[in-house]
């Protein structure tokens, strides 16, 4: 690493506030867009991380979500459609001391940028990837995306969508992700802490934010956020806790081999005496399970059959790509000595003419 590029973290001493991370740009998302919530939470989180403001970099692709870097008073790049993980990977390799964030959307990350998304995750490079999933193409005004549900009518699926949707979390886990979480944009109690966990995770941290597009797909998550219904439709993941849902925790997930089933929890309010299964029979969430098979199973839960899991699916330790890359440099120097240009140029099979 060139000395001139080595910005030390020691310059952090000044205490930063949320205001320090607000750029002068007018925010141009539609009023009521779920993206505002993420912006506010990130601006709130960053001052708490003990990282100097100049050492943050936000990289995005194309789409509504990708306007994000303009609104952050950090270093930022609004790149091209789907390629943010690739740009960010180059930056992180060049400057591993920086805190590099990718803000993306369901079209950007999962359609045009699917390849970069899975390979960044596969390498476990130290990027924080936040995907705002509104299940629609917003910036191009309403076409179906890779997460639009079957049957949905959009501008390009007037007779109903026939493209089966991805589970972004399952895709990330399939690519070997070491940190995967899902959260609803309006759930501030969960969003902040999950972003903080992602920020602290070495390697790739992937956070899917279920975000409401108020113009082209309004209400996509209405049931999930409706106070009357939501407890029946969401499964909040808590490490070390049994998988329970319902307003009184009266239902739970039990595994019959590899097949999950919904059961009533004996003794919970509303469960008739003598019915239900013992709490001890429920599957217990373990985000640190090295095999991650429960996480993968949960990532495929979808309505109407199952409640939608929210929270941290997986958080396991694994070597970060940039650290392994630095180790390669050390190995090369040990094996070959520090590089010397003159001897390199005069290397190989030489002969001298007097």
């Amino acid at each position, binding site marked *: *690493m*060139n000395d001139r*590029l080595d*910005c030390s973290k020691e310059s952090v001493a000044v205490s930063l506030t949320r205001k320090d991370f607000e*750029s002068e*740009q007018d925010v141009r998302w539609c009023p009521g867009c779920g993206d505002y919530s993420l912006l506010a939470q990130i601006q709130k989180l960053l001052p708490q991380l003990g990282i*100097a*403001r*100049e*050492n*943050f*970099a936000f*990289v995005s692709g*194309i789409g509504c979500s990708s306007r994000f*870097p*303009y609104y952050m*008073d*950090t*270093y*930022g*790049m*609004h*790149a*091209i459609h789907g*390629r943010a993980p*690739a*740009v960010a990977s*180059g*930056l*992180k*390799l*060049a*400057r591993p*001391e*920086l805190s590099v964030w990718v803000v993306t959307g369901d079209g950007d990350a999962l359609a045009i940028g699917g*390849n*970069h998304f899975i*390979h960044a995750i596969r390498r476990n490079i130290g990027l924080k990837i936040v995907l705002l999933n509104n299940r629609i193409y917003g910036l191009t005004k309403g076409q179906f995306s890779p997460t639009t549900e079957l049957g949905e009518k959009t501008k390009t699926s007037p007779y109903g969508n026939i493209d089966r949707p991805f589970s972004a979390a399952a895709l990330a886990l399939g690519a070997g992700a070491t940190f995967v979480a899902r959260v609803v944009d309006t759930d501030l109690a969960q969003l902040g802490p999950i972003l903080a966990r992602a920020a602290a995770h070495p390697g790739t941290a992937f956070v899917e934010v279920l975000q409401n597009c108020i113009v082209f797909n309004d209400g996509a998550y209405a049931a999930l956020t409706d106070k009357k219904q939501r407890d029946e439709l969401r499964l909040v993941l808590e490490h070390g806790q049994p998988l329970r849902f319902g307003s009184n925790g009266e239902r739970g997930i039990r595994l019959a081999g590899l097949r999950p089933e919904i059961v009533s929890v004996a003794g919970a309010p509303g469960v008739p005496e003598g019915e239900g299964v013992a709490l001890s029979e429920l599957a217990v969430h373990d985000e640190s399970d090295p095999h991650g098979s429960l996480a993968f199973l949960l990532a495929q839960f979808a309505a109407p059959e199952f409640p939608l899991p929210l929270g941290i699916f997986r958080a396991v330790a694994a070597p970060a790509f940039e650290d392994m*890359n630095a180790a390669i*440099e050390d*190995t*090369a*120097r040990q*094996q*070959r000595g*520090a*590089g010397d*240009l*003159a001897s*390199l*140029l*005069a*290397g*190989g*099979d*030489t*002969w*001298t*003419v*007097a």
Partner: protein
Amino acid sequence: MSGNEQVATEPPGALAPPERHVEELERVVIRFVGDSGDGMQLTGSEFSRVIARAGNAFATHPDYPSEIRAPTGTLFGVSGFQIQFAANRVFTSGDAPDVLVAMNPAALKTNLGELARGSVLLVNSGAFTAANLARAGYASNPLEDGSLDSYRLIAVDISLLTARALAGSGLSKKEADRCKNYFALGLMLCLFGRPIEGEIADVAERFAHIPRFAEANVTALRAGYGFAEASELFASTFEVRAAPPQPGTYRSITGNQATALGFVAASELSATPLFLGSYPITPATDILHELTTLRNFNITTFQAEDEIAGICSAIGAAWGGHLALTTTSGPGMALKTEALGLVTMLELPLVIVNVQRAGPSTGLPTKTEQADLLQALYGRHGECPIPVIAARSPADCFDAALEACRIAVKYMTPVILLTDGGIANAAEPWRVPDVASLPRIEVKYRTEADGFAPYARDEFLARPWVTPGTPGMEHRIGGLEKDFLSGNLSHDAQNHQRMVEVRAAKVAGIAAELPPLVVDGPDAGELLVVGWGSTWGAIAEARRQAEAAGIAVAHLHLRHLNPLPADLDEILARYRTILVPELNLGQLSRLLRERCLREVQTLHKVQGRPFRVSEILARIKAISAGAEHE
């Protein structure tokens, strides 16, 4: 050498070597051809090393199929390696071979057409089995049916003699058979009067990790050499004297090696870490191989998931302050073009190397062409000017890489460096430069926050390079049009025009600092041959031969294709006829016509092969004779 044809399988008795006549030659072209599994590339490059050590000038041209191991004995599986060497100055690997070494019938069939009658033809008769003859489509054995009577045929059962030499070595029949290229190399070293000691040491080193192969290959090499020395096959041997060139240390170098070393040098000379983001593609991958092994320098290499990530990761690294590059060939270049638009908007330094190959699409992936020139200049969306430079020979790739980096960081711009499959894999001697004599490359990152504006420009219209991590200068860049000064988003109509024009003016302004063009030959007159890239050697040699034949012809070779040098118009105006030989359908010709508003003649070739000197010379002679063409 006598014209007698012989077929030998038996080594002669251990008598004194027959006396031989030594034929002295000014220059020789040898072509080694065999099955793609026969090791012809290795044989050729080993022979080149021996030639190099003796101080001869040389140039090589490998010609191999895209299949790694095509079915044995087939016409499409033939792999070749050609070398021309001489006392001094060799411009090309030669037109047609003077000596053809053919390891099987398919190799003979596909190459015999280019061998002049009376030339030396060395064949491995052991491979001329009924099955191989049938695979090559021979109805009868050409070694026996008299069809080769007009060549100086030397038929040696290399397969059998190699097997005998290795009997008792413990190698399997198949393993032993794979050593026959070293037997052939031994024969050739004897024929050209070269010592084998250095080569023995090389083989031992090359195969040091598998001692039994090292031993077997040395045995085969010695056996070949000894066989040639003792037998009466060669009635004469050849000598090509070496006339020492400029004093110094020399090495043999391929274009891809020189490109890689050029970038390492640029990194060291600018004290800036190097970053290569790349995806494997023939014939560019060797640059990635080279730089990946040099991680003990200030180098990061990243094998990306695709061509797009190759360039995008490099853009990220350039933003982070690294001297960033991506390497590819034509189809990969096509995939990178969206990102070229981005980096043009970002105004970050980046070098994109296109080792051109014959296209379009997969085309002839292992063969050469120069057909990506217009793509380099224009193949993008929007008004997207990017400087383009080209290397003209393997060793010249070093200087071209340095120049590309210099322009990139000085002007804060992407730069496209064009080489091609012809010079990427070809080798020639390179006089190793003294590091102290190489020009420094100035890189400055802006760290002064006072008065900072992301798109303020210096006298070269370059904007400041500010890397993330610099306190007090946080700002946003991106692909959307930006304000002329602040770099903030701007959809203002006048601002867009201003930005489009300033990006164009910045690149056009590079012409002002280019050194004066140098013309070889008369500085005015009837004919100027204008070339770019790898055609340099063939044009230079054709010019030399034309001059020797009393024809006055000048040669101008362009390094910078965008912007074109400022003195180009004036030079072209001094000649009545302009001839542009190109390995495409006339791309530079088109640029010159547009630039100078005059007619130029194109000599085009798109066969996946470099020009022969004779092809260019014939056109020069025709023009000189006043003949009308095209």
